[in-house]
């Protein structure tokens, strides 16, 4: 034994897909757009349910 410790070769650094600042900006804009559409749809379905059922919306067995 020479005392020298043989270092294991390290795997190359995985840095994934790196987005440019412009791409990050667009990704954020897309996320906001999708969230807005989903929020709007949830509100629309809620309102349509109230409109279609009317007072019956409260009529359920407890």
């Amino acid at each position, binding site marked *: 034994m020479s005392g020298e410790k043989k270092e294991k070769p390290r795997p190359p650094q*995985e840095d*994934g*897909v*790196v987005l440019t600042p412009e791409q990050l900006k667009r990704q954020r804009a*897309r996320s*906001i757009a999708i969230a807005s559409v989903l929020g709007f749809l949830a509100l629309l379905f809620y*309102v*349509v349910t109230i*409109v*279609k059922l009317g007072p019956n919306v409260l009529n359920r067995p407890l």
Partner: protein
Amino acid sequence: MSDERASLTGPDPYAMASGGVMAGGAASAGVAAAGEGLAAPRDYFELLKPRVMSLVIFTALVGLVRAPGDVHPVIAFTALLCIAVGAGASGALNMWWDADIDAVMTRTRGRPVPSGRVTGHEALAFGLTLSAFSVVVLGLLVNALAGALLAFTIFFYVVIYTMWLKRSTSQNIVIGGAAGAFPPLVAWAAASGTVSLEPVLLFAIIFFWTPPHFWALALYRADDYARAGVPMLPVTAGPDETRLQILLYTLFLVPLAASPAFLGYAGLAYGAVSVLAGAWMIVLAVRVFRVRQGEAAVKAAKGLFGFSIVYLFALFATLLGEAVIGGLLR
């Protein structure tokens, strides 16, 4: 890593592999814009063909307002939204399929798919998702007849017109025009649950308006269509035959457009607008028929194309105005 990055920013491999769907110019345009990557929300919005969508919303609104029976404003809004989204979805699917010819035509080369801002794959997924969503929501929240009619409209525009007729016959926009004529019919069905003669007349007006409108455009864009291999009438039958067809369709359209007034479906205001604006349509169509050479011929075609939009808008705006005023006076 570089491969993954390429898949995010490069041209759509699916579209390029599915021969004929996106070829030649579209693919190279995609490479040119590859550095940008990741479409922004406005690129998706552009896929919906917002200008066409605004006309669809307007004609559908007229169908909705004129239909018998009282429809709750929230349900009416939902119906309009679904019709608009369904029309937009058709536009996205049309842009997906036509990316190759869009890339070689001056008017359309800046669209999201041929310019590489949105991949063919994304446009396809976006269009299919919105189509399914608009049909299901309209069917469940409004009524099944309206949902079925909207599904048929999307199918007709995408499959019958875009995939089949557009590249195979010079009668493409004559038959395909039906897709653009359906919205008031769908809206009428949404409001009343039925379909009667009046919405069929609205359908017929848009249906017979479409050929002179698009052929006037095709007359001065014939080179574009020829380069893209789209068999528009001026390309296959020549400009003179197109001029004759424009005149014949206009002569049929004008009395048809006035008929709601004579059949008692519309009032005096509509009668006056349809006759006066119709007379001007005929004057412009005759001018297109007679002036065949040089810049004056192009000017005549552009004049008819521009006024045809005003004409259709005037007809439907008057129908809307009469219905709104009639409702207020009741």
